[in-house]
């Protein structure tokens, strides 16, 4: 949007320039983006603890997080000249991409009232053009983020933000984890163009949460504070006022952004439309709270005792600790043992007892579904580990800890699950490669067996038969050429493995002194 007259210049290559305001805007005219927060999508969800809130919302005009309305951007190389080309700052030299001014302003206004407390949740970082997780400008910036941004949205209708993998470009986004090829969208930015077969210059690696968690550890190793200590939530962002309406079988009917035109099959099945074929029904957040009250839920969010799902309703719980009993899965009091002998998900283990590797206990239950719509059994639980070595290099590893790869499938015509699976899974696992000197994080990922992606439900409902193009002889098919082409093509998969992610548990070595190189 915005009023641009210059010729369209593609955004400059290079990770994380926060000011590609609009693909139609020349890169030299960042002010032309009129989208609040910039079209790099540096949007945050702000959640307040009580009804006590600032009198007015904090404006993106006064506290920009990206180039856009109100922010006069200037080219910016960063404090140490290390920012990517195309990075911008406000006229007074604050990097755009940082929520620091917004968070500080909100804190001041919030503190002016009584009993006001909030959390800021970055969301949809996969379309942030890499700007969501730029390295902080200063340890102070990092401290503000660590304090106020404790969660990140890891999944929503416009794709997953955990990680990205493509068989055409293995390893390009910092991972060889093939299960990261899940709800990756081919858009680098909100409102940006569709990019066929994007690479890491199109969609920067630091758009993704797992990489941000790793760079958070790297920053902490140097500066003593982790700017990206983020637990996980999932959301819809569908703007329909229908929270938790994430069912794949319903998505094509309910759509997103209250946009009735979505119901036009042309839009829903169009992979180049940002709410089209590559979008999905959205995710959910689970919290482990003492009771179902706003205060208890806020407290759980704040301590990151949360998990996210990619739409379905499995339940998962993770504890970590040096003293966790090895037989926790056999005992009835999983949670009591976890709290008594370790930390819950979202917490931090310190090296005080690090003579041996810490144990991680994880338990999950499948989504039971509802009459006529059974849930999908679980396939496996994985632990994803990220760490930083003594040289400051980051690494990651993924371990299957319960269940495992199987030959379960789904019948495309009926969308019924077939083959083996688990109603529940539980494991106590200890890290075989633990090094007490290395900062690390561990989170659990629970995979369901394959199920139909929403487009398959849609195509089935339209009666599309991939063996019968609409123009073949016989009675006239109910579907159009376009529907046939999109339903039977390979722009997106027909099945997915829905999943859940627990917030990470961090491990910090005992010595807290900052090592500066």
């Amino acid at each position, binding site marked *: 949007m915005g009023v641009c007259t210059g010729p369209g210049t593609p955004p400059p290559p290079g990770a994380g320039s926060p000011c590609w305001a609009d693909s139609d805007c020349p890169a030299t005219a960042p002010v032309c983006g009129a989208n609040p927060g910039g079209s790099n999508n540096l949007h945050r969800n702000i959640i307040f603890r009580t009804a006590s809130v600032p009198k007015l919302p904090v404006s993106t005009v006064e506290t920009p997080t990206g180039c856009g309305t109100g922010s006069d951007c200037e080219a910016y190389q960063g404090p140490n000249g290390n920012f990517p080309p195309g990075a911008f700052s406000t006229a007074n030299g604050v990097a755009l991409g940082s929520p620091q001014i917004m968070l500080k302003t909100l804190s001041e206004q919030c503190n002016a009232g009584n009993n006001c407390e909030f959390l800021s949740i970055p969301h949809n970082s996969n379309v942030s053009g890499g700007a969501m997780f730029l390295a902080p400008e200063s340890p102070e910036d990092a401290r503000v983020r660590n304090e106020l941004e404790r969660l990140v949205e890891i999944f929503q209708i416009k794709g997953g933000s955990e990680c990205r993998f493509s068989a055409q470009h293995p390893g390009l986004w910092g991972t060889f984890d093939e299960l990261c090829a899940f709800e990756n969208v081919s858009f680098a930015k909100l409102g940006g163009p569709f990019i066929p077969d994007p690479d890491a210059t199109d969609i920067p690696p630091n758009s993704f949460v797992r990489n941000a968690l790793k760079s958070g550890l790297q920053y902490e190793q140097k500066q003593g504070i982790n700017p990206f200590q983020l637990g996980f939530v999932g959301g819809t962002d569908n703007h329909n006022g229908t929270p938790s309406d994430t069912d794949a079988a319903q998505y094509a009917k309910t759509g997103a952004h209250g946009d*009735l035109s979505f*119901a*036009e099959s*042309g839009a829903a099945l169009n992979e180049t439309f940002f709410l089209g074929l590559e979008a999905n029904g959205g995710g959910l957040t689970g919290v482990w709270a003492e009771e179902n009250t706003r205060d208890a839920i806020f407290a759980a969010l704040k301590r990151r005792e949360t998990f996210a799902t990619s739409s379905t309703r499995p339940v998962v719980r993770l504890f970590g600790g040096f003293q966790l009993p090895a037989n926790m899965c056999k005992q*009835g009091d999983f*949670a009591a043992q976890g709290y008594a002998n370790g930390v819950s998900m979202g917490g931090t283990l310190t090296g005080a007892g690090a003579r041996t590797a810490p144990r991680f206990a994880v338990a999950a239950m499948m989504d039971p579904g*509802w009459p006529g719509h059974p849930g999908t059994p679980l396939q496996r639980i994985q632990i994803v580990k990220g760490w930083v070595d003594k040289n400051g290099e980051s690494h990651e590893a993924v371990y299957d800890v319960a269940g495992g790869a199987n030959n379960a499938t789904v019948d495309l015509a009926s969308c019924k699950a077939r083959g083996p699976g*688990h109603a529940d899974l539980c494991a106590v696992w200890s890290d075989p490669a633990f090094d007490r000197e290395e900062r690390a994080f561990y989170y659990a990922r629970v995979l369901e067996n394959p199920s139909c992606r929403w487009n398959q439900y849609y195509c089935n409902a339209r009666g599309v038969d991939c063996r019968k193009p609409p123009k073949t002889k016989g009675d006239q098919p109910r579907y159009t050429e376009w529907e046939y082409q999109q339903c039977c093509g390979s722009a997106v998969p027909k099945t997915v493995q829905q999943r859940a992610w627990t917030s990470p548990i961090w491990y910090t070595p005992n010595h807290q002194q900052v090592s500066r190189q």
Partner: protein
Amino acid sequence: MWGWLRSPAVHFLIIGGLLFVGFDLVPDLHRQTTGRMMERAPVILSSARVRELRSEFVRRWGSKPTPQQWRAAIQQAVDDEILYREARLLSLERDDHSIRRRLVQKMRALSMDPKAGEEDLYREARRLELDDDLVIRRILREKMRILLQQDPNGVQIDTRQVEDYIERHRQQFAVPARVTFSHVFFSASAQGGTPIQKAKTALTRLRSRSILPELSEELSEPFLLGHRMRGWTPSQVARRFGESFAEAVFALPPAAWYGPIASSYGLHLVWVHDKATEALPPLETIRERAVRALQEERSAMNFARGLQRLRALYEIRIEDGESYRSALATPEKGS
């Protein structure tokens, strides 16, 4: 508490409401305005527009409209036009910040003069009649809708009406039933023996030894959500354990072991501690909600009535050949 009084929206509503009441209470003025000052041009849906509506419908819903759907689509198009025109008659576009901002933005794109001030741009845009576009039309229709929703006689709601509303919408206000139960669980995926045998053996033991729930956990296999569910509603139980499980548990008499009952996870022996049936909460606790809902109901009625009256002020022509008469269910002009 009275902060809302300062809200411009409230001022808008009050002033709008007064204007509206004014029009209604002064019959002469009303006659005068409709008769002389406000001669209304007919609303015409040209055949081109009708074709467009039809193809829009097909594109959006993937099939041709049924006669009923088609009537509704035509009616919608006519009503949209009427609401827009009435809003213009009342000059609702005046001093509207959203409309002003849009016009300034549009004019800035067209203007040759990069230094032109906002006021000049606004005036120029109005002179060029840039103020008829989809967005402005939507804003004006919405303002007109809000005006029509107001009750010309003011809002009076008494307790009897509130109680009546609650009775008519009992499901919205009732507090759902709740159950607190303990269970002994046998996993479907556990190894060693089928769960049904284990469950039956355990049930016999629980009953014959009169084992209370507090001491039953050691007979159970681990269950991630624990062994006692406190105050769960039917839908909570159904979402996690399944519909048939929920029905069974809510039907159990308290203080005894029953089962096994199947869920998605395996088999459960259940002891119900406590049940509460669905009930309406005390009126004071839901009055505010009910009043708001009742007001909304009345607003919808006011709007429908107001719109009906406005339709009667217009000659409506639909150039759709055959379907002209059947297209609109509204009374003939002037009724």
